C-alpha cells in the first residue's frame, strides 16, 4: 500500500513533479504559490544532477525553462497570476519552438496586482493562448490535492507527447490547503526519448538549432499549420467529470475548487428535493465540449459558476450550441463562493 501523506497543495505539486522525473525548476516567489518554489529548492538541491534556480525575475525564469527544455530536460516553473502574465512572452516562444514544459499558475485575484486570495480570473489567458500568436497550452484544472499531484504528472506526459507547454491551473485555496495525497509508482524510464530533437553535444551528428521564429512567411505558416494539427490531435485528451446526471433539475458547470463547493451544494439541495447535476471539466484546453453537448439537454437550465466574472461560460455556450438556457454566477477578486450561495442561485433560477 502507498502511504497517504497530509500535504499542502503547493507541496504536492512539487513532489509530484519530482516523482515524474522533473529535475529542473526555475521560478520567482509570489503568494499564494511560494511553498512550491520553497519545496523545489529543498528537494532538488539534494538530488544529484538536478538544478534549482530562484531567478531574478519571472522573465528570467521562463527563459531558463526554454533553455532546459531545449536541452531535453523535464522542467517546470510556477507562479501566480501577475507573475504568469510576466512569463507570457517566453511561453509564446516555447510553444513556437515546440518544447515541452510544465507551467503552474496558482491563481489569485486580479486584474493588476489584484489580491492574494483565491480566484479563477486567468481562464481566458490560460486557455486562449495568453501570449501573442496562434497557439494554445494544454490546460489541466485539478480540484483536490490528490488531483494536483496526479494532473502534474499527467501534464508532464502530455507536454512531452505533443511537445507543447502544459499548464496546471489551480487557485490559492487549492495551493494553500492540506489533504491526504498518495504518489503512485511512476516509471521514469517511460519518459519518451528526446534525442532526436534536443540540443546538447552535436558530436557525431549534424548541428541543430531550436528557435522561436522563421523569417520566411511561408515557412512560418507551416509552423502554424503544424501547431494547428497538434491542437486538433489533442482534442481526444479532453476530460470531464460527470456527477449526479440522473434526471437533474438543473446542471451546474464548474471547474477546480468551485466544482467541490458545488458538490456540497448538491448534498444540501437533496434535502430540499432539488437534484443538481454537475459537469466538471478536468481539461480546460482541450475543452470537453462533446461531454457538455451530450448532457446539456438533460435539464432545462444550466448554471455556470466560477470565481471570475464569467470566462468559461463562453466555452459552455459554444459547446451547448444554443440548446440550453445558460446562466452565470460568480464571485471574484479573491472572494470564495460558498455552497449556500450556489444553492440560493439554483433556487432563484428554478423559481
Amino acid at each position, binding site marked *: 500500500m502507498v502511504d497517504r501523506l497530509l500535504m499542502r497543495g503547493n507541496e504536492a505539486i512539487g513532489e509530484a513533479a519530482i516523482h515524474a522525473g522533473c529535475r529542473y525548476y526555475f521560478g520567482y516567489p509570489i503568494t499564494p504559490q511560494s511553498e512550491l518554489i520553497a519545496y523545489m529548492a529543498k528537494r532538488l538541491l539534494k538530488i544529484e544532477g538536478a538544478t534549482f534556480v530562484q531567478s531574478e525575475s519571472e522573465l528570467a525564469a521562463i527563459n531558463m525553462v526554454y533553455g532546459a527544455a531545449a536541452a531535453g530536460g523535464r522542467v517546470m516553473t510556477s507562479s501566480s497570476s501577475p507573475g504568469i502574465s510576466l512569463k507570457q512572452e517566453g511561453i509564446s516562444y516555447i510553444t513556437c519552438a515546440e518544447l515541452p514544459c510544465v507551467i503552474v499558475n496558482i491563481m489569485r485575484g486580479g486584474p493588476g496586482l489584484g489580491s492574494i486570495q483565491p480566484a479563477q480570473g486567468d481562464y481566458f489567458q490560460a486557455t486562449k493562448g495568453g501570449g501573442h500568436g496562434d497557439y494554445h497550452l494544454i490546460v489541466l484544472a485539478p480540484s483536490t490535492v490528490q488531483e494536483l499531484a496526479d494532473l502534474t504528472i499527467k501534464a508532464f506526459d502530455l507536454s512531452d507527447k505533443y511537445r507543447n507547454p502544459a499548464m496546471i491551473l489551480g487557485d490559492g485555496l487549492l495551493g494553500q490547503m492540506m489533504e491526504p495525497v498518495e504518489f503512485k509508482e511512476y516509471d521514469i524510464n517511460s519518459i519518451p526519448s528526446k534525442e532526436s530533437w534536443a540540443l546538447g553535444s552535436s558530436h557525431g551528428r549534424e548541428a541543430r538549432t531550436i528557435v522561436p521564429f522563421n523569417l520566411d512567411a511561408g515557412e512560418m505558416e507551416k509552423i502554424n499549420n503544424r501547431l494547428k494539427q497538434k491542437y486538433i490531435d489533442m482534442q481526444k485528451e479532453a476530460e470531464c467529470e460527470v456527477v449526479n446526471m440522473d434526471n437533474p433539475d438543473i446542471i451546474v458547470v464548474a471547474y477546480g475548487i468551485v466544482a467541490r463547493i458545488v458538490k456540497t451544494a448538491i448534498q444540501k439541495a437533496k434535502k430540499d428535493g432539488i437534484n443538481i447535476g454537475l459537469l466538471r471539466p478536468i481539461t480546460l484546453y482541450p475543452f470537453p465540449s462533446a461531454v457538455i453537448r451530450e448532457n446539456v439537454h438533460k435539464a432545462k437550465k444550466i448554471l455556470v459558476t466560477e470565481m471570475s466574472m464569467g470566462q468559461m461560460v463562453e466555452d459552455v455556450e459554444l459547446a451547448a450550441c444554443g440548446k440550453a438556457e445558460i446562466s452565470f454566477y460568480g464571485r471574484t477578486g479573491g472572494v470564495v463562493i460558498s*455552497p449556500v450561495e450556489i444553492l440560493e442561485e439554483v433556487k432563484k433560477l428554478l423559481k
Partner: protein
Amino acid sequence: MLDEIIIAGFGGQGILLIGRLIAQAGMLEGKQVSWMPSYGPEMRGGTANCTVIVSSEEVASPVVSNPSSLIAMNQPSLDKFESLVEKDGIIIVNKSLISRNVKRDDVEVVEVPANDIANELGNLRVANMVILGSYIAKSKSVKMENVFRALEEALYRQSEKMIKLNKEALERGAMFC
C-alpha cells in the same frame, strides 16, 4: 460522520497546528480530511483561522459556511464565528482570554482556561494543546492516541521534553469536556 471545525485566534497562538493535528489524526484513522487556512497579509498578533473537515465520505467543499464546532482562542474569534455554528454544535472557549459568555443557548459550550493551564505547565505556548485536548474529549472527532501520534510526527524536530509537555497539555485540556 462529518465534523466541520473552525479554529480561530491570534496569529502565533498555534491555531494552524491545532487544525493540522486534527486532520492528521483523522487521516491516521483512515478518514477523509481537509485543512484550509485563512491566509493573507497577516503576521503574529493578527487574526488566524483554519477550517478542518473530518469525514467518513469524500470531502466536497473545503469551505464551510456553518461549522459543527468552533474553537475560539480569543474574543474576536468568538464574536466573528459564534453565530455561524450549527444548532447543537460545540463551542470551545478559551476562558483565559474571553471574558464574555457565549450568547447562544442552542449549542454546547465548554470553557477552558487554556492560557492559565499552560502557564501552570510552565509554557504559555502549549495553550493551543490544552484547548485541543478539551475539543477531542468533548467531540470524540478523532482518538486522543492518534492526536499523540500526529503530534510526534509534527514536532519531530523538537526535544522529547517538548513533546511530553505538549501531551501533558492535551491531557490537562481533556479534563474539560
